[in-house]
């Protein structure tokens, strides 16, 4: 039964992504769905770190920035193939995450939040000031992503690329959570001492999940850069990090569905509210506040507990 339900969720998402183009009236709606998918994939990775392993990162946009600028700089200035550049970006982001994770994860709580915050801000400052390579605060254009003469262009092609990536990430995240690795993460979230006693190498797992989420963030940064065709330092901005953490929290910590819902909601809301004539920020803030007051655990976990009180949420 459980196995069937597991696959039914994946099949449901696949079906939804297949049928969605039938009701999307024009490129603008494709664009929103693509941005939702990009955010959803990043948030899935971030939720593994924040929700499941219980470690906060307020500098995640920095890793997205590394990926985005690797895809912008290497092909433009050094003539690398975009896919090589993308891999290089992910490698750089992972390496930075791996080197810094050990000292950073000695910290806990507010100190950990501040260290990751600092990391993100430093990356953003470097991007802003190395104007010779990055174009400075005004940003720079990004070459199209192609392979063997075929270029991905237009919202409709990008939609299928992102749909495939989203399905893969969803599947991978669910599998990871139910693997020994995922159980170890949840254990160290519950109690580091207890999990250490049970033989979990706490530091190793923390580092591994940090590197993994940085890797995904960088890859999606590259995808964003190629999709939009232009990058500015805003992508590595502190506020972008906060936006992503908000998606995790609103959707629901330690909930795979929550990550999807959080990303969809927070990508769609600004567009839906844009007709409010100057009140959109107020409306946006009020909605977030109400969510947090009445659903402190996030949308998905709160609603699951409400409608299926006898069942623990299946992550």
């Amino acid at each position: 039964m459980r196995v069937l339900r597991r696959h039914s969720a994946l099949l449901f998402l696949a079906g939804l992504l297949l049928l969605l183009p039938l009701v999307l009236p024009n490129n603008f709606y494709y664009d929103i769905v693509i941005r939702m998918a990009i955010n959803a994939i990043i948030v899935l990775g971030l939720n593994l770190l924040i929700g499941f392993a219980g470690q906060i990162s307020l500098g995640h946009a920095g890793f997205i920035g590394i990926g985005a600028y690797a895809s912008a700089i290497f092909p433009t200035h050094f003539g690398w193939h975009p896919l090589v550049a993308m891999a290089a970006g992910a490698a750089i982001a992972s390496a930075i995450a791996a080197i810094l994770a050990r000292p950073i994860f000695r910290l806990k709580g507010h100190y950990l939040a501040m260290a990751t915050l600092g990391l993100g801000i430093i990356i953003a400052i470097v991007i802003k000031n190395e104007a010779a390579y990055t174009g400075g605060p005004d940003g720079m254009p990004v070459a199209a992503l192609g392979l063997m003469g075929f270029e991905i262009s237009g919202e409709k092609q990008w939609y299928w690329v992102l749909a495939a990536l989203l399905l893969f990430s969803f599947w991978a995240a669910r599998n990871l959570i139910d693997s020994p690795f995922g159980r170890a993460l949840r254990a160290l979230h519950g109690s580091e001492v207890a999990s250490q006693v049970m033989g979990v190498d706490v530091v190793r797992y923390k580092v591994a999940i940090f590197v993994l989420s940085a890797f995904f963030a960088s890859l999606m940064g590259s995808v964003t850069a190629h999709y939009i065709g232009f990058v500015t330092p805003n992508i590595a901005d502190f506020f972008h990090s906060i936006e992503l953490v908000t998606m995790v929290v609103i959707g629901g910590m330690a909930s795979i569905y929550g990550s999807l819902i959080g990303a969809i909601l927070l990508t769609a809301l600004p567009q839906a509210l844009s007709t409010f004539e100057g009140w959109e920020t107020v409306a946006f803030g009020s909605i977030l506040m109400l969510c947090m007051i009445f659903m402190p655990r996030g949308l998905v976990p709160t609603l699951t507990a409400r409608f299926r009180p006898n069942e623990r949420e299946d992550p």
Partner: protein
Amino acid sequence: MVKHSLFKIVTAAAIAVGASLPAHAADPIKIGSVLSVTGPAAFLGDPELKTLQLYVEKLNKDGGVLGRQLQLVHYDDGSDASKANGFAKRLIDDDKVDVIVGGTTTGSTMSMVPLVEKAELPFISLAGAVVIVEPVKKWVFKTPHTDRMAAEKVFDDMKKRNLTKVALLSETSGFGASGKKETEAMAAKMGITLVANETYGPKDTDMTPQLTKIKNTAGVQAVFVFGLGQGPALVNKGYKQLGIALPLYHAHGVASEEFIKLSGPAGEGVRLPAAALLVADKLPASDPQKAVATAYRKAYSERYKEDVSTFGGHAYDGLMIAVDAFKRAGSTDKAKVRDAIEATKGYIGTGGKVNMSATDHMGLDQSAFRMLEIKNGDWILVN
């Protein structure tokens, strides 16, 4: 979807009925706009939006354009270029606007450029940097003066005063970074030596370290500051504190009444290049810009009870150039409107006299800038 098709039926019925009615029942002409109304660039985007709203209303009251009403469709990108890109898609694909007037910052503008080029939609940007119109892009125009022109005007004035050894202090924002690059190029071209080259962050609250370094540099004859917003006012204050007596110049990004207020007495004697708008009432009656600048200034400050800035003026020019092009094209056909914008000749705006051509999509020359000086808490025209 049901609602959507219902809307279509109603629209179709309206068109069928409308065919027998005079032209005023036609669809409005849609002016699209993406502006940075919130976020760090809000001080630029806010007056731009207010200006567009004010003048769309005014034009509609006077009967609209081509017998059709104007409709402004605007979005706020929150000073984030990737959001500007998304909203530009919305304007193009969903709202199906006839022209875009907007793009507050150079980053926002450049992120929209590939989209408008692909959609073949006329786009008049309100951002400063030279890259927007150089190289010329078929569908992209802009109204503000460039940083290159500002540097040239300032160096011109310095040379008149026999000042050739200059210290440059620029902001690390988009505006300042682009300004720094253009200033360095212009200095080399005009025989000015940059003896010191310092930068400060847009959120810095104290520039005395950089100024001290400049003060201690041998041979400096004048200081040129390239920045936006509050930073340059803080430079003025630090300058007075350190007792530096050299002539001080700023760029056009601080050309607002606010700058004088922020600087206080420390602003006295500071010079900067700016559009005629700021000194509209001090222009001689013979000046061709006098009428336009005074009228805009009056309309804006009456409606919003605040001082005009040159930024709102750029939006005014953008809208008027677009409206003028609609009239000359006689339709909203995108290719015809584009050709009409490119053929704009002798348009007198708040920013100066605009003469566009196939090789110049901005159309302003050096005469668009006036050299101003702050004296007794007000602007005066130099020479």
